[in-house]
């Protein structure tokens, strides 16, 4: 389990390298399509997201 922010810049400040990585990939297209289209209702997706976050101990 992380005891501190694990991704830092050259000066030791916490950075969001995850967001930097995603911005350089087609992830936004996949994520946008997943959340904006499809057969599963938005409320079901959100409930599943919250349950998944709870189980995996994700703060989002």
């Amino acid at each position, binding site marked *: *389990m*992380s*005891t*501190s922010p*694990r*991704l*830092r*810049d050259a000066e030791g400040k916490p*950075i969001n*390298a*995850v967001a*930097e*990585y995603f911005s350089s*990939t*087609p*992830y936004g*297209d*996949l994520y946008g*399509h*997943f959340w904006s*289209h*499809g057969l599963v209702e938005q409320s079901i997706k959100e409930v599943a997201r919250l349950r998944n976050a709870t189980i*995996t*101990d994700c703060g989002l």
Partner: protein
Amino acid sequence: MCAGHVWTPARRSCSPADGGRPIRYAPAMGETWINAAADSSAESLLALRPDLAGHLEAFDSHAAASIGPRLRTLLEIRAAQLLRNEGYVASADPELVDQATNWYSHAALSDVERTSIEVCEAFLIDHHSITDDQILRLQHLLGEQGTVALLMNIAMLDGFTKFRRVFAVEGI
């Protein structure tokens, strides 16, 4: 054990004590639950949602390229072993299967490969068990962006190996 049910370890199911229909947790590989799929391949399953499959393929290809084909294959094999996708392991290069299986001591693995498989294994078994030391070693070997790219590949393999295993379709 469920109340009122008998545990049947041979079937890995919890069936009703009155002799009712046993629970099937997952079909055998090749017996997918999705009747609309043309066959039991992952491609056939994803073809049911073509737009989503296209975006997924584009992203997954990008993620795989960011760590290189050899490391990606080693991680695919280890994920398939841990998530019991026996068909993929059986079809993989036996030498790479040996390396992925014995990652902790196999001489053919680089430090990057060994550490990556170590973290992959921890991620799949219990992601809370990944330590600061393991992440620091990855950052030393791969840098910040490389560490994120590696964990993204592991996350994709974790999720989609399970996705395919639940539907009992072939492929990683």
